[in-house]
């Protein structure tokens, strides 16, 4: 359990810190790996580009993916992940401020596992992150890894 990581793809440092804070408050001890744009996320997961050192990092337990990202958008990241056999089954939770239906529909169409809208109220936000951690890290059985 300990070695299972959470990958957070988020460009906003405030949100990065708030999520870290919320995870801490929920006593979720899994390592939180943070990348701040879509390109980094793809490098990290698929081992291409300049992240060659982590070519063979174990896949995270869950990926928290923002949609509005510099360089490569969240939806594009999701599409690429789902098209790669290695990452096709990794649970991806969309964590975004957008409540646009279109975004929601596109995400689910690309086999996102969940769609969570970041509430403005931190209390609610922290609660959401807590529930999310509990569910994906504790309750959910991840697909078997090769």
């Amino acid at each position, binding site marked *: 359990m300990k070695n299972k990581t959470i990958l957070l793809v988020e460009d906003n440092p*405030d949100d990065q810190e708030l999520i870290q804070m919320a995870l801490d408050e929920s006593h979720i001890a899994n390592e939180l790996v943070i990348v701040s744009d879509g390109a980094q996320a793809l490098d990290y997961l698929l081992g291409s580009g300049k992240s060659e050192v982590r070519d063979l990092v174990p896949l995270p337990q869950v990926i928290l993916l923002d949609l509005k990202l510099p360089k490569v958008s969240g939806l594009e990241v999701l599409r690429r992940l789902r098209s790669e056999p290695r990452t096709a089954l990794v649970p991806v939770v969309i964590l975004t*401020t957008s*409540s*646009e239906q279109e975004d929601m529909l596109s995400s689910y169409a690309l086999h996102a596992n969940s769609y969570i809208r970041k*509430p*403005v109220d*931190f209390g609610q936000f922290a609660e959401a992150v807590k529930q999310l951690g509990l569910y994906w890290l504790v309750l959910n059985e991840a697909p078997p890894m090769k």
Partner: protein
Amino acid sequence: MKLRLGIIPKLTLVFVIFAAVLIASLGLLVFRNARSSLQTANISGLLSTALEKETALDAWVEERQDDTAAIAASPHLRDEVMRLRSAAPDSEEARAAYDRLVAGFAPYVKPQGVFLEVMALDPETGEVLVSTNPAEKGKFKENRPYFINGRDGSYVQNVYYSITLQAPAMTASAPIRSEDGSLLAVLAARLNLEEMNAIIARHTGLHQSDEAFLVNTSSLFVTQPRLIPDPAVLQRGVHTEAVDRCLERSSGVISALDYRGNPALIVYRWLPERQLCLITKIDQAEALAPANALRGTIFTVSGFILILASVLAYGLARSITSPIRALQDGTARFGRGELEKRIPITTHDELGKLAVEFNAMADALMKKEEQLRGHAAQLEKMVEERTASLREKEYLLSEAQRIAHIGSWDVNVADNEITWSEETYRIYGISPEAFGHTTQAFVELIHPDDREAVQGWIGRLLSGTKGEQHEFRVQLADGAVRHIRGSGEAILNEAGVPVRAIGAVQDITERKQAEDEIRQLNAELEQRVAERTSELRAANKELEAFAYSVSHDLRAPLRAIDGFSQALLSKFSGQLGEAGEHYLVRVRENTRRMGQLIDDLLTLSRVSRQEMSRQPVDLMALANEIAVILRDSDPQRKVRFKIAEQAIVEGDAGLLKVTLQNLLENAWKFTAPREFAEIEVGFSENGSERVFHVRDNGVGFDMQYTDKLFGAFQRLHSIQEFPGTGIGLATVQRVIHRHGGRIWTEAAVNEGATFYFTLGADS
């Protein structure tokens, strides 16, 4: 042909015919009777003549026979014959005796006597002993009947043709006997047939043409016919019907042709003793002359009577018909239009009554005539009006055709003859004189490129196709091109063969040009619309991007503010002091409100630009769902929801849900002060429109602000009283308008509010 006669000629004719028949019958009867009597009389006359002649002839013959016998019995002559015979021939004595005998015979012979010749024959040899005709002496008459029979007694030989005399002859004979009775000689005396002739030919004098004659068995005339004086006739034979019958030894009366070939009434008698035929005759012409005279008389008298009868009949007819003529004349004059003509009533019989009736009829007719004249005048007036109106219509039609540029045409298929209206000629730009009036001439007017299509159209039209309009061009003489729209229909006979086709042509040149312009304008317009659309699309894209940014980028800092405020509150609570904590709470409260504002703005933006997908939606079911959520949000509140059963509309489910959500949340919010809140959702039919309403018994509002109600960020209550962003009703109105509906309210302060809305005809 049937004769058309008036009453007078008719009556007269009838009288005359009647009289004519009567007179003719009488005349004929009289004539026939007269003729019959005349015939009988004639026959009687002829018969008596014949009998008289016969008797006279017999008497004459007997007389001559007696004469002969008397001569023969004369003793003197007897003695002389004895002497002659006893004397030697050529003796003196003999000569003397001969002379004495001749002398003795002489008184019996002409001119003193009645005989032509007297002779004595030798009884043995028949030799002529003595004769008054010396030439006869010495001849032998031994085979003559008068000799043979004369030896035994007195005898007359009937008329025979004497070869010696070359004429008819008749001879009587008697024996000359001695005293002792021995036969001395035979005396023969030739009769003078002139006497017989005289007897027979003796003219009665009663008639002109009557005559009598004798014919012997050799069909020869024995006596001279009275009417043919030529003696040569005696040597001629006569063969008429009467003679032939008579020579068959019969007697009778016959009406036949006589020897001259004239029709005659003939009495013939066979005289057996004389072996002769006695003919008495009279010409029919004369026999019937009195009858014919009578006939003439009858005719004359009849004619006279007829004329008299005609005159009488005419007079009678006139007198009978004069009232009828008066009637007729009256009728005729009446018929010619002299309606005031009346008939004088002169009699009181049927004709008089008729005249009375006629006068009554004439009165009635005059009245009718007057009425009719009135009607006719009226009719004439009507006809005039109609004619004027018809002319007006014709003029209008022609003008209408001219103004509308519509002409009419008519094709007689059998004769291939085309008839056009004035306007049609104008449209085709040709004069009636220049146009050939045939289909070929018509096709030649068509623009060469359109001819084939027009011929195809005409073909379809003639095969019975209906309702097809065809547009084509004509090339005018000046080179200009006109656009024509033709339409027409064929009239088929029972066999389905087209006999006639009629239709219209319209000059659509101006319209065509206008259409071209419109087409061009449309193209330009479309171009412009396309440009605008793409501009709009770009603007929309920008707006979407903006909304996207708002939802992302405005919320993220808020969350950071709220998050870190919270971190401050939880992690440094002891060091902030009461005021510091209060400020942080106010910061957090405002971030929350700002988040709400952003969310509401996003919703408003979404309901404005989101594409609508219409589908059946049950508004009441939606209301129920929302009511459940509201109840769950605050289970302590006592709120009674009154929601109608079902109201299915066509609309966008998401947008309608936003609308109901806003309205019900408002109702929920503004009834909060009420201990027993009531929220009613329902609808009513207003004509063809369905009006929905959401009613509450909340705090209501002053109707003077109702125009501000639906503006964004407009609020009628303070945030402290009722929280809200002032965007909800703007969103509601936007959705209602997008559905083509209307929204309005009724409210009063503290008396609740009712929101009414409709969803437009399509919903």
